[in-house]
C-alpha cells in the first residue's frame, strides 16, 4: 500500500506541475458558471441537480484528459520501464495512478462546493440530494477515470488514449442516454443498464440505490483489471 501511495502522491503533484489539471478544473468551472446560473435563476428553485448534470457531461472529456498521460506518457518517455523494474507489483502502479487521478477529481468536485453553498444562501437547499449527488458524480468520475487509465495502458500515444476513452465515455455518459427513448425491448433494457446517466439520475435526486453504487464500482474494478492486464502483458509481448 505504501508503494501505491508513493506513486499516487508523485502523480498527484505532477498534475499541478503541468497545465492539464488547471485547464480541466477551469473548463469545468466555466461550464458550470455559464450554464448553471442562468438556468437556476430562470427556474427559481434552490436545487443543484442541473450542476450535477453539467459535471456528468464534463467528466466525459475531463476524465480522459486527466488519464491520457498516466501510462502512455510513462511508456513514451521510458520511465515506465524504470518504475516497473522497482521491487513493486504492477497492481500497485495501476492503483497508484488511479488514486492520483481520483484525488484530482475530488479536488475538482471540491472546487464546485461554492455553488451549493451559494444556492443555500439564496434559498432553502435540501442537502441530502446534494451529498448523494456528489457521491454519484464521484463514483461516475472514478469509473470514467478507470476507463481512461485502461486506454492509456494500451498505447504510448496520449492522443490515442484521449480520443478512445473520450469516445467510450461519451457513449456511456451521454449517447446511450440520448438514444434510449428510441430503443425498445431487451436492447432498451441493456442500454438502460449500461448507461451512466441512468445510474446517476437517482443519486442526483437523493436516492442512494446500492445497485447504482455497485454498478459504478464494478465498471471501475473491471477497467482497472483491464489496465493491469495490459501492463502485465508487456512481459509476454
Amino acid at each position, binding site marked *: 500500500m505504501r508503494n501505491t501511495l508513493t*506513486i499516487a502522491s508523485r502523480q498527484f503533484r*505532477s498534475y499541478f*506541475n503541468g497545465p492539464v489539471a488547471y485547464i480541466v478544473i477551469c473548463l469545468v468551472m466555466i461550464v458550470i458558471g455559464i450554464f448553471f446560473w442562468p438556468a437556476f435563476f430562470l427556474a427559481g428553485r434552490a436545487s443543484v441537480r442541473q450542476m450535477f448534470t453539467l459535471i456528468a457531461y464534463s467528466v466525459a472529456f475531463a476524465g480522459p484528459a486527466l488519464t491520457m498521460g498516466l501510462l502512455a506518457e510513462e511508456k513514451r518517455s521510458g520511465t515506465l520501464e*524504470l518504475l516497473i523494474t522497482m521491487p513493486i507489483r504492477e497492481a500497485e502502479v495501476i492503483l497508484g495512478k488511479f488514486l492520483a487521478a481520483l484525488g484530482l477529481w475530488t479536488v475538482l468536485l471540491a472546487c464546485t462546493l461554492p455553488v451549493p453553498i451559494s444556492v443555500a444562501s439564496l434559498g432553502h437547499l435540501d442537502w441530502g440530494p446534494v451529498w448523494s449527488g456528489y457521491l454519484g458524480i464521484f463514483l461516475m468520475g472514478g469509473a470514467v477515470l478507470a476507463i481512461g487509465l485502461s486506454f492509456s495502458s494500451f498505447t504510448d500515444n496520449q492522443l490515442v488514449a484521449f480520443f478512445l476513452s473520450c469516445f467510450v465515455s461519451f457513449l456511456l455518459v451521454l449517447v446511450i442516454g440520448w438514444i434510449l427513448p428510441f430503443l425498445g425491448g431487451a436492447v432498451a433494457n441493456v442500454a438502460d443498464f449500461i448507461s451512466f446517466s441512468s445510474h446517476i439520475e437517482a443519486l442526483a435526486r437523493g436516492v442512494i440505490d446500492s445497485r447504482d453504487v455497485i454498478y459504478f464500482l464494478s465498471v471501475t474494478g473491471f477497467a482497472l483489471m483491464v489496465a493491469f492486464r495490459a501492463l502485465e502483458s508487456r512481459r509476454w509481448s
Partner: protein
Amino acid sequence: MSDVMIAARGLTKRYGPHRALDNASFEVKKGEIVGFLGPNGAGKSTTMKILTCYIAPSEGTAAIKGADIWDDPIGARAAIGYLPESTPLYGEMLVAEYLEFMGEMRGLQKDGLRKGIRRVVEECNLASFYAQEIRTLSKGQKQRVGLAQALIHEPPILILDEPMSGLDPNQAVEIRDLIRQLGKERTVILSTHNLAEVQVTCQRVLIISQGKLVADDTPQALTSRGRNRYTVVVAKGDKAREGAVREAFGKIKGVDSVRILESDSGETKLEVLPSSKDDLRADLFKAAVDGGFTLLELRQHAQNLEQIFRDLTLTASDDDEDDDDEEEEEAKPAAKAPAKAAAKDDEDEDEDEGSSKSTDKEKE
C-alpha cells in the same frame, strides 16, 4: 553463500519467428564488472530487460542473487540498481524530489532514505544541481542522476544499459571513473558499443551476436586469442606488380587473404590475414625474396578487441533487424563502426602494440 550474483540459464526470447535471444547462459560473480557487447539487435537490451524482470523470457530462467525471476521477481528486482538506455527521468521533478521518490520506491524510509540520498549525492557529485529541475540539466548531469537513483538503495548488482551513450568525452570519462569506483564493491553489467570503454572499465566481456553468446572472456584473453595480421610494403618494380605480389603472398601456407591497401607509383602496401595464430613473418620475408620484390616494411599487428568484435559479429550486424525500438536508434553509428574501424586500421598506432616489429630489408 555462493558468490554468483547473476546466473542466466538458457535464456531465449522470441518475437514471433525472430529469436532476439537464443539460449544464452552465463554467470556473473560478486565484484565483477562485465561489459555486454553486441551489434544492434543482438539481444543486449533484451537480456537486460529480462534480468530486471521487465519482460519475461520465452524459455529459460535467471537467478538474481539467488532470487529466481519467475518465482521471486520482487526479490530479484530488489537486488538490482538499473539504469535503462536513454536515462528516463521525470523532467518536471527537482533532483531532490526525484531521489526521494526513487528511494521510497526502493523501500527506503526516514533515516535510511536521508542517508541514502546524502550518499548518492556525494558519490555521483550531484550537490551543485541538487535543487534544480531535471529537465534543465545537461545530458551528463542527467546520467549522474540516473546512476544515483540506481545506487540509492545500495544494490549489490548494477545493470547499466548504454550508460555513456550521447555523452561528450569529458562526461564519458567522469561516468566511466564513477562506474569503476562503484565496481569495486558491486557487481556491474554494462552494455555498450564503445570497445575502448570496455577495455578500460571491464574485467570481463560478453559478446552477443544474433541473440547468441559468442564470447565470454577477459578483454586481455580475447585479444590474445585473436589472429595477428601483417602489413607488408614492397617497392614497385618490373617483378613487383600488384597482382604478382598478391599472388606470391597468397600462396604462403597459412595465409587466408591478401588485400592491397594502397598503391602508388613507388610502393604497394598490402594487408595479409593469416588463417591461424602461426607467425608468418619469416614466410612472408622468404616469399618476397623468392619473388624478387624489394621489401620496404613488414609489420605484425596484434588483433585488438574491435577486430575481435568485428570478426565475431560482422555477419550479424549486416542482416540483423532490431529486436526493439530502443536499439533502432543505435543502428546508424554501429553500421558505420566497421567502416571507420577499417579506415583506422592503417593509421591507428594502438594496434601496433605487442609484437609489432618492423623489418626493412632490401633484396640484392
